[in-house]
């Protein structure tokens, strides 16, 4: 009797997970494997019409990548976005969380929602809004900076400023999410720790440094990894605001992949970019987890 029940349960278990596994298998796992295979072929516009014209070319696509200046530019730009934008985003989130969480603060839910609001908006729409905010002549940003005597900057038209402009938009758009994660982390720190430290004469900075930061350790791992993975995938901002320009200064890996794959239909070459993106994400995730593990006792 028990055996029959267990069998029924096991059958139901498989039945319940099957729809999800099928979808993930067909529309995620197989395509991911497919991307690897594709990256060893010369799949192009002719292959789209007739698969038979596709040939295996071994590592040719990767060799082409390595010798393509555009690829290195896209890689450098993406790393710039990840290395500068990621930590900045995390820092702003943490600052917002600490401020909102302060004991003196009233109307906490209001501030929490106000900071979180940009996160729920549509990125494409916000990229358009910011494109006008960055307008050199009529933009709000230059108007505001003009009030304090800072000269007009051509934010999106200047290769030096274009990427920082995208980073600013991205930080504004996304910091609310990580702020909530940090808030959850902050609220799980026992109050007694702070009271004990205060009795020992520790000021706010030392309490932050020696209690808050260490206690937030696991939260940092989560926030760091999630933010970094998302940063590697930046696409919509440059697609809408700069089309990768000026002078390719905002061409990112995913934008490059999109253009090679869906504009020029060089799907084999484009798949090699996808594989590089995957490898980079995996490597960066492992490094971050490893660093965290070493820091913990």
């Amino acid at each position: 009797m028990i055996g029959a029940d267990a069998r029924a349960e096991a059958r139901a278990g498989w039945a319940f997970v099957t729809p999800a596994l099928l979808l993930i298998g067909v529309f995620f796992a197989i395509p991911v494997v497919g991307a690897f295979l594709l990256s060893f072929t010369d799949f192009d516009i002719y292959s789209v019409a007739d698969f038979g014209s596709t040939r295996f070319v071994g590592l040719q696509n990767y060799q082409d990548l390595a010798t393509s200046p555009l690829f290195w530019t896209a890689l450098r730009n993406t790393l710039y976005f990840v290395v500068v934008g990621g930590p900045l985003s995390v820092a702003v989130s943490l600052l917002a969380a600490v401020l909102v969480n302060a004991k003196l603060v009233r109307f906490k839910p209001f501030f929490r929602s106000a900071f979180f609001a940009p996160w729920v908006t549509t990125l494409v729409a916000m990229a358009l809004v910011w494109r006008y905010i960055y307008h050199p002549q009529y933009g709000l940003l230059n108007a505001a900076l003009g009030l304090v005597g800072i000269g007009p900057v051509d934010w999106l038209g200047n290769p030096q400023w274009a990427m920082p402009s995208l980073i600013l938009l991205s930080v504004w758009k996304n910091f609310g999410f990580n702020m909530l994660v940090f808030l959850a982390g902050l609220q799980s720190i026992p109050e007694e720790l702070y009271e004990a430290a205060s009795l020992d004469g520790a000021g706010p900075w030392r309490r932050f440094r020696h209690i808050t930061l260490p206690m937030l350790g696991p939260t940092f791992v989560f926030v760091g990894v999630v933010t970094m993975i998302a940063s590697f995938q930046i696409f919509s901002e440059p697609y809408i605001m700069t089309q990768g320009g000026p002078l390719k200064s905002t061409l990112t890996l995913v934008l490059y992949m999109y253009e090679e794959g869906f504009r020029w239909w060089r799907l084999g070459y484009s798949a090699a970019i996808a594989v590089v993106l995957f490898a980079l994400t995996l490597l960066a995730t492992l490094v971050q987890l490893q660093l965290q593990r070493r820091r913990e006792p």
Partner: protein
Amino acid sequence: MSARWRSAGLHALLLAGAVLAASPLLWMLSASLMAPGEANSSPPPLLPDRPTLEHYRALFTSLSLGRYFLNSVIISLGGTVLAVLITGIAGYAFAKLRFRGRQSVFRVLLAGMVIPGQVAMLPMFILLREMGLINTLFGAMIPVLAPIYGIFLVRQYALSIPDELLDAARLDGASEWRVFRSVVLPGLAPVMATLGVFTFLSAWNDFMWPLIVLSDDARYSLPVALANLAGEHVQDVELMMAGAVVTVVPVFVGFLFLQRYYIQGIMAGSVKG
């Protein structure tokens, strides 16, 4: 005295932050009500001289934004209903039903979370083309249908369901599906709501995949249509801002009413994860 100053400083800082966070959204709304060309003056006006709805009218008449709006609603609602159902039963099964291979399958799924979705997009395009799903609204909703983080979220929540409750229902002769429907589902309602709002949001806001899969103008989702429109109407700031407002309003209003589910979802998911 010092506490009062500290409090004032803190609130001033927070208020400045809130203004900075909200100002792009407020400006978007304000500019969408300005007369054509009004926003393109120096210094840029903060409020419309004489508010007008003409851009909204133009969007829904000559630019047929209504159709794109409807496409987005179908993609997002359809995707959300399916995703909640599919991930709901899967998450529950991974938490509570004992079957061989459960742990290892779940571990593989978790590992899959580090793979960026874009890696799959090129082969998926070829696959969908073979299946005749290119240019269909169903094709556009595929990436949200079985989110791994959703399965993970439901599983974490379902772990706290007491086994005795399930066994009691089974002793009464209920089938596993009955057990799920009448015993488990009511308890999972909060996490399903959280999953629902997140899925709707990601389907509504998604851009890259719809851009790839929807090539026929009539099938565009709202963000794709907006991006396309922006290329043709670069100079029409006010019109574009009205389009941005239309795109953002549904998710924004949804957020105002359902913020509990967003905020609890993020705060709970991350702590347990």
